[in-house]
């Protein structure tokens, strides 16, 4: 170097020590030169190296959070995305960095291919590059499934499905890829091992070999620069390299920020339909399958083989010494034509989806489902039983879901088809009981049922207010509520024995003369039994209730959960119900 500093002072001595013991720094003293001078055309390889380092760095951080198990994978990714500091950014850079790598690798291929950089003596460098390209794509395939959301899961099912179509050994390929007969823990652990150990190690080795060979042979001089003098690589080319890296990173970071990281759909659900789409760099194959119709399997296998075969064969086919594009027209034409075809197919596939309004509707619904799952994961955590169970984490979810499915149409205040009493917050409390005694056939009670105001229906209880309150207290005590007044109940019991026992009973399991046994009415056990068979002689009796039996349709556990919900409603306010959140 012209401006080499003398090996004196602390810095100089340290530099001399490192050079002497390790040889590091020696190369800087023998500057490599570039025939024809530095150019932005040579930056792609170094931008790829930068992106590889970016993927390694962000990947290491993600690996410190990720859990490759079928119950935890989605939850850990959602945690990274929504609950850790800058997790969305790191994950987004990693995800979109993979896309950037595919783009820059494509540009690198285009540049070296156009300028004939695959020609003697650089064939092996080229072949290593083609293999690296394939490995980068495999890297993204193994990474996409790890998120274990609907998008990654279904894309992987299709990809493995294609591989399983391989003649003769297809089934074996599938079994090895999945780690057994179906998707599960072993699928994730082996894709994870491939993604974070096997592929990085392979890519690192091949990249080192690729760069070593590229350095050995030097750059292929750009057309029209053959007569220009050689210039040192440092700092002219190096500056162009870091500028390109900075520009790439700026674009990547801006895109990542605009998307708030990478998308994450709802947890993998083998039972739910999903519009599976591959990552965008496989879109051309996806489109080819659509166009190929019944030949789709052949197309899916043959197309990558043809493209790969062509790229590998290019140095053998195009052997002339000339680098000028004009003298290599057929090969440059085939090469550019192939890349253009892939680009056109990609664009066509994306356009096909963009022009499908039904798909857009489905995607909006799927996105909403993903957002809901993630919001629940933040609020309640993900059950250790698996990502999908996050949907069941709202309080009393199962009971409320059952209520919505089986009870709401007949019992909800807003239901047009209501046939029975309104079931709402306050159901079975003192006010509710008092209201019922005052008007059993009133609108919120039996008003909408066939029983209302018939001969069989209970008549309004007409008692002085104090007695009415004592009777309410007696019935309220039957719910099992802790806040009942014993003295009032005792007075109520006297009234009951006088006025009610002509029809009702108040003893466990004893049917009334013509009306329900009121023992335990409003307690959890009572509701469980009532829901099972409202027509039982201890309840409404046959012929009086329109409510169907649920003892065959719902399990005892389901009826018990519903009963628990009804008991909860007794002390709940509409605000409490709203606070449970949507299902």
């Amino acid at each position: 170097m012209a401006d080499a500093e003398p090996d004196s002072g602390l810095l100089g001595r340290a530099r001399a020590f490192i050079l002497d013991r390790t040889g590091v720094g020696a190369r800087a003293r023998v500057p490599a030169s570039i025939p024809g001078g530095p150019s932005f055309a040579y930056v792609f390889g170094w931008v790829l190296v930068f992106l590889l380092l970016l993927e390694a760095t962000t990947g290491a951080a993600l690996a410190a959070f990720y859990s490759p198990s079928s119950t935890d994978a989605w939850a850990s990714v959602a945690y990274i995305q929504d609950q850790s500091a800058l997790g969305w950014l790191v994950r987004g850079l990693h995800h979109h960095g993979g896309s950037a790598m595919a783009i820059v690798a494509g540009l690198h291929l285009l540049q070296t291919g156009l300028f004939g950089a695959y020609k003697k003596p650089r064939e092996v460098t080229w072949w290593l590059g083609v293999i690296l390209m394939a490995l980068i794509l495999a890297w993204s395939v193994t990474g996409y499934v790890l998120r274990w959301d609907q998008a990654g899961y279904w894309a992987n099912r299709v990809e493995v499905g294609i591989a399983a179509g391989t003649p003769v050994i297809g089934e074996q390929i599938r079994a090895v890829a999945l780690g057994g007969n179906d998707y599960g823990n072993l699928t994730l652990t082996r894709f994870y091992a491939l993604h974070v150990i096997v592929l990085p190690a392979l890519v690192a080795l091949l990249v080192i070999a690729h760069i070593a060979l590229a350095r050995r042979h030097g750059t292929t001089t750009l057309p029209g620069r053959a007569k220009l003098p050689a210039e040192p690589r440092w700092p002219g080319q190096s500056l162009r390299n870091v500028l390109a890296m900075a520009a790439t990173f700026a674009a990547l970071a801006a895109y990542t920020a605009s998307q708030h990281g990478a998308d994450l759909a709802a947890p993998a659900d083998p039972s739910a339909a999903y519009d599976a789409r591959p990552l965008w760099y496989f879109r051309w194959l996806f489109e080819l399958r659509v166009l190929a119709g019944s030949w789709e399997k052949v197309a899916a296998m043959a197309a990558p083989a043809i493209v790969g075969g062509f790229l590998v064969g290019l140095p053998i086919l195009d052997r002339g010494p000339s680098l000028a594009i004009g003298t290599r027209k057929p090969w440059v034409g085939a090469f550019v034509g192939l890349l253009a075809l892939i680009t056109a197919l990609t664009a066509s596939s994306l356009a096909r989806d963009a022009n499908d309004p039904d798909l857009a509707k489905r995607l909006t619904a799927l996105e909403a489902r993903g957002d809901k799952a993630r919001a629940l994961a933040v609020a309640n955590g993900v059950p250790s039983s698996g990502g999908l169970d996050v949907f069941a984490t709202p309080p009393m979810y199962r009971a409320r879901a059952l209520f919505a499915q089986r009870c709401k149409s007949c019992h909800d205040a807003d239901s047009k088809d209501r046939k029975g009493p309104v079931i709402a917050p306050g159901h079975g409390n003192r006010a509710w009981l008092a209201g019922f005694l005052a008007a059993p056939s009133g609108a919120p009670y039996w008003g909408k049922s066939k029983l209302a105001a018939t001969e069989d229906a209970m008549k309004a209880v007409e008692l002085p207010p104090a007695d009415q309150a004592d009777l309410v207290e007696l019935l309220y005590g039957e719910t099992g509520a802790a806040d009942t007044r014993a003295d009032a109940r005792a007075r109520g019991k006297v009234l009951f024995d006088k006025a009610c026992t002509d029809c009702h009973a108040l003893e466990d399991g004893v049917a009334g003369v013509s009306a329900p046994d009121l023992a335990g009415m409003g307690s959890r056990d009572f509701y469980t039994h009532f829901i099972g068979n409202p027509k039982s002689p201890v309840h409404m009796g046959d012929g009086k209730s329109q409510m169907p039996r649920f003892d065959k349709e719902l399990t005892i556990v389901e009826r018990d959960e519903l009963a628990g919900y009804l008991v909860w409603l007794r002390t709940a306010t509409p605000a409490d119900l709203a606070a449970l959140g949507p299902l």
Partner: protein
Amino acid sequence: MADDKPDRRGFLKLATCAIGGGVGLVVVAPVIRLVLDPAGKTTVTTPTDPIDLGNLEAIPVGADPRKVDIIAPLVKDAWSAARDVVLGAAWVRRTSPDKIEALSAVCPHLGCAIGWDAAAKSFICPCHDSRFSPAGDPLSGPSKRGMDPLPIAVQDGRLRLVWKRFKADIASREEA
């Protein structure tokens, strides 16, 4: 190109190092922030309110201390919410019908699980042979303090215990 002028070359070198280093920093900074994030958080949340340990009648009056598993109804661990998670164990004894005591089974020395030596009528830690009396007072061995009592109460005939962890290997009793 005029890359041969010394001051211009110097500037280009400086620019290369500055841009390269800058890009490296902006990549590494969020990664470090993310990796350090859990260090400042309560990532595992165990219940702070009393945990049900079962029926009071299961602990006979005047008998040897009984080991009771402490099972939290819900533990949040980073992304997951697990039910019925064993947090640890307590040694519970009933010295009279209405006097109940609970000692954490975590050894105050270095955190091993303390066992009961029925023959010697004392607690013993299997790791470093710290011995404690049935009341939890240190008898011998390396432990710098007695076994850690845990708040326990009886409600509606059920044992209710508050689970706590304490700093190991110090003479005073400080919650961890």
